[in-house]
């Protein structure tokens, strides 16, 4: 399998995205805004459609649309905090609408590659962009993990402590938007939002601390991404879709063994 350069690149990109997608997605999950990923994925599609129709680089237009969308979501979240999910729904609907209309004017096969991704057709520019994004995301989450947790836990208490809550939220949102836009071409727009939620949902079954849950979700995501790419190579099926099916199977396995984990934890605490 590794005699092909495209497979080596696919593995590298898969591993890097496998680590950073649950990192940037976990915040949205804990804030009960999991649909943010969905909304951004759909607006990334509208960005791709704009790029294809206008003859521009779809990756760039997709990045711009994701950034605009996350700013709109954050604006609505701040202005109408009780209806934070409304912003997500508005952006998601608008994204589907724009993408739907513009696909009438594009080459359908080109557009399809963004729905389910084409991790085996990644060019050097995309590889370098993913590496750059990986470095930024990992550095941010390692250096500012306490500030991020404090902001998720209670924004107002964090503000009183002097934490720059708006800056932390803004940086997280930008990194989420960039990750989704870059993942649209590689993993696929319809699939990336699942990869935000599924590894975190699986790790939550372990009922562990924030750090262990975060680390576990990265391992789970990494395993599903690399297993998915390997299976897709040998079975000749779409890599993005295979990654998600592996993630769902992982979640089902964890749900099945959850009673055993809970029993073991209870015995440990009694001992």
């Amino acid at each position, binding site marked *: 399998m590794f005699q092909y350069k495209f497979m080596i690149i696919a593995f590298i990109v898969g591993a890097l995205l496998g680590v950073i997608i649950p990192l940037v997605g976990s915040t949205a999950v*804990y*804030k*009960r805004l999991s649909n943010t990923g969905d909304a951004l994925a759909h607006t990334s599609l509208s960005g791709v459609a704009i790029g294809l129709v206008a003859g521009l680089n779809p990756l760039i237009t997709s990045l711009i649309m994701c950034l605009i969308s996350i700013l709109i979501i954050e604006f609505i979240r701040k202005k109408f905090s009780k209806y934070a999910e409304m912003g997500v729904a508005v952006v998601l609907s608008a994204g589907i609408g724009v993408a739907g209309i513009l696909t009438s004017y594009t080459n359908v096969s080109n557009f399809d590659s963004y729905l389910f991704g084409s991790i085996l057709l990644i060019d050097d520019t995309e590889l370098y962009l993913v590496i750059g994004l990986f470095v930024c995301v990992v550095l941010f989450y*390692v*250096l*500012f*993990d*306490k*500030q991020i*947790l*404090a902001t*998720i*836990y*209670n924004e*107002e*208490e*964090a*503000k*009183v*402590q*002097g*934490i*720059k809550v708006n800056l932390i939220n803004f940086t997280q949102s930008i990194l989420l938007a960039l990750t989704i836009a870059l993942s649209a071409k590689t993993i696929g727009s319809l699939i990336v939002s699942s990869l935000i939620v599924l590894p975190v949902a699986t790790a*939550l079954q372990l*009922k*562990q*601390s*924030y*750090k262990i*849950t975060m680390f576990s979700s990265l391992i789970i995501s990494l395993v599903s991404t690399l297993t998915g790419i390997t299976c897709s190579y040998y079975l000749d099926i779409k890599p993005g879709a295979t990654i998600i099916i592996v993630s769902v199977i992982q979640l089902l396995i964890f749900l099945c063994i959850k009673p055993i984990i809970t029993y073991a934890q209870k015995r440990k605490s009694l001992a």
Partner: protein
Amino acid sequence: MIKLENVSFSFKSEPILQHLNLNVNDGEFIGIVGPNGAGKTTLIKLILGILKPTEGKIIKTDKSISYVSQTTGISDTSMPSTVQEIVSLGLTKNKPAIFNHKKNNEALQGILKETGILELRNRLITELSGGQLQKVKIAKALISSPSLIVLDEPDAGMDEKSHSNLIKTINSLNKERKITIIFISHHMDDLINANHIYLVDNKSVTELKGGENYVSI
């Protein structure tokens, strides 16, 4: 010391609080009472700097302030975090925490012992009772050794025993550690030791004097 000078606050042109004048001296225990929706939380958010006054000015000399907000937020019921992870957040500022990890760990162990939750340190906050969760919030507020603690109805949803323990803790923080306390409560009984009790109602703040009572609505 905190001084509010002719402070007003409006939301979407609707006045919420008008022309407030208030002094809080170092080491005082201030009680704030008032009906629901009168603007008690708005008042403390102005004091804390979370909200900006539309008129007037607020002078604060306290450098280290802790805030204990109302319980049962989303995070308390769904975050996968342990007690020690949450308490240690009280020490978090803008610098990356890895630079003073050892010092923070010593402070953490000390405050967990002091507040009687050392044995709960590895428990998830989602598994705690209302009283235990409140101790966690108090420990988080205390770990940074603040000179002022602002508590917004921290007793909401607590049973009688936990409530009584919380009031004892707040009183001892003020008396023994000389921490300035601003405490929003619906129960006048909780404020027996307060130096001043202010009633927030009809967009203004008035001091209740000489055993005046306030019936919670």
